[in-house]
């Protein structure tokens, strides 16, 4: 873990991303404690105040709502939804991938054909179809974004799981009488976990962007609830006369996505064994052998069994 952190922060861009994201996270976590106006409180007399107006640091929107309060609450929501989508997609996708890779054969074939079909869609079409069926709403946008990313995780994790399923330590676990469920949970999962983390860190930025995009189209969060995408969507109608209502949420999305991408690339570079930085150890058995006494001395025989016991 310490090696990982050292490797991560030696990468200056990743460190920069971590700092920006950290600042945003702190701001967002402190939001409920800050002395901000209610983000949904309208005041039609103060419509479209410019930034740096007294009492409204970033100005107000078309209904006179404080942009700073809306921005911080919106960021909170967008980050939470994006992270939730990433977690859901990673959990479901990785489970599918592990099951397909571990069991192989017909199960693998059936599952992966289905995954290939999902991947045959340009991603937004699938998301739009799901939102169309479930109806517009932030929760449904979250489900759509998660569902669209499931095949990506399934494909990635399956590739790793297939390689691991044939390793000796899996055979050893099977020989020792473990069931499939236990082998997957105690032997396979710890070994694919870093890959899942890499896949998540490189896609979570995308998922935040995609949910913001659906909200921008009016298919995600519904008024008066603000997330960054819907703020940008509302700002668009006043783009030419009052550009600050679009610039504020737009820049925030940009900062979030950029810092998450930088950090994600850094995590990948620090963990990926193929890049030789080597914070990832090679796959290994997770169950330790409880030895009583010393290792018996080697004998001349090809295979010698001493005191067989269970």
């Amino acid at each position: 873990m310490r090696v990982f952190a050292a490797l991560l922060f030696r990468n200056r861009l990743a460190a920069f991303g971590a700092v920006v994201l950290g600042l945003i996270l702190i701001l967002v976590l402190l939001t409920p404690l800050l002395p901000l106006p209610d983000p949904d409180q309208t005041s039609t007399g103060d419509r479209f105040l410019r930034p740096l107006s007294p009492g409204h640091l970033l100005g107000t929107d078309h209904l006179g709502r404080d942009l700073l309060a809306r921005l911080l609450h919106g960021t909170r929501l967008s980050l939470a939804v994006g992270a939730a989508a990433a977690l859901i997609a990673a959990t479901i996708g990785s489970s599918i991938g592990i099951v397909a890779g571990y069991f192989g054969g017909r199960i693998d074939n059936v599952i992966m054909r289905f995954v290939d079909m999902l991947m045959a869609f340009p991603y937004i079409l699938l998301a739009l179809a799901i939102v169309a069926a479930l109806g517009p709403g932030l929760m449904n946008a979250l489900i759509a974004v998660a569902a669209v990313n499931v095949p990506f995780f399934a494909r990635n994790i399956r590739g790793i799981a297939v390689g691991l399923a044939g390793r000796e330590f899996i055979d050893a676990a099977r020989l020792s009488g473990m069931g499939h469920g236990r082998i997957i949970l105690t032997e396979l999962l710890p070994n694919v976990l870093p890959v899942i983390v890499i896949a998540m860190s490189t896609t979570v930025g995308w998922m935040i962007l995609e949910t913001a995009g659906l909200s921008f189209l009016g298919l995600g969060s519904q008024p008066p609830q603000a997330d960054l995408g819907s703020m940008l969507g509302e700002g668009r109608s006043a783009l030419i006369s009052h550009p600050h209502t679009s610039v504020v949420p737009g820049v925030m999305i940009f900062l979030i996505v950029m810092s998450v991408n930088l950090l994600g690339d850094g995590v990948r570079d620090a963990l990926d064994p193929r890049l030789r930085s080597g914070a990832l150890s090679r796959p290994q058995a997770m169950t330790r052998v409880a030895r009583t006494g010393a290792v018996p001395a080697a004998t001349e025989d090809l295979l010698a069994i001493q005191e067989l016991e269970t």
Partner: protein
Amino acid sequence: MGGYIAKRLISAIPVLLGITIIVFLIMSLIPGDPATAILGSYATPENVEKLNRDLGLDKPMVQRYFIWLGNMLTGDFGRSFSLNRPVLDEIVERFGATLVLAGTSFVLCSLLGILAGVVSAARQYGAADKLITLVVLIGISVPSFFLGMMMILLFAVELRWLPVSGMYAIYGGGDLPDLLRHLIMPALALAAVATGVIARLSRAAMLEVLRQDYIRTARAKGVRESRVIWGHALRAAMVSIIPVLGIQAGFVLSGAVYIEIVFQWPGVGRMLVDAILKRDLLLVQGGVVFVAACYVFFNIAVDVAQAMLDPRIKT
């Protein structure tokens, strides 16, 4: 090569069927009963039952799927209630506009991306490389719809160089120069992210190739550096760049939805979003199946191009 193309086309059939099955399953997720929705909450049970029978909703799901599939294969995608015209006519018309936009964007991002990647790799760690890496980083992270809005502010509102939105001018428009003027901003905004991704991967692919022995041999023989880069190295690197282009085409097509909204482009993406907000599900369903099917064929074309370039792929 002909045999390979035929083989790929045949392998597309199950994928196309799979697409229709997935869309059908998603659409059957819709909560509630369509007949009650159409007739309102005061409908008598007899009327609901009759309408269900007329719409074919009393039949089992498998049978309904095959009826739907059969209708689509004969060109009947149903009738859009919000536009009161056949779904297929509307889709074909709108898809043309999307193809103009996405196609231009795709050409732009391929050319710019590969160019930036090659220059970057040829001058690794030089000033040009650093500048390109920074621009690429920003390009990947900025949401295309926000970029489009900022371009409108700068080029249309402040500088007044280009029209704000739409595909043709209402008065006196309709010719090619008019289309191009309207196309520049949306095509560039749509290409930004894909250009960044392609530049990044082209750079990596080129660096990989430039390390090879035959490049050193070519240089030792005295081949001009520009020929080494653009002739010898790029040709080999294209093998790993082309699959990336195929994937990015899908992202360009997806991103077109946002850009069409921002620039009021009369494409299929805007049609889909409007249809969802009006709950015109036949239009959504038809549009998704149609575009996804086109995308499958596009991917086959990419595979064929790949097979032509790379002799190691068995045809």
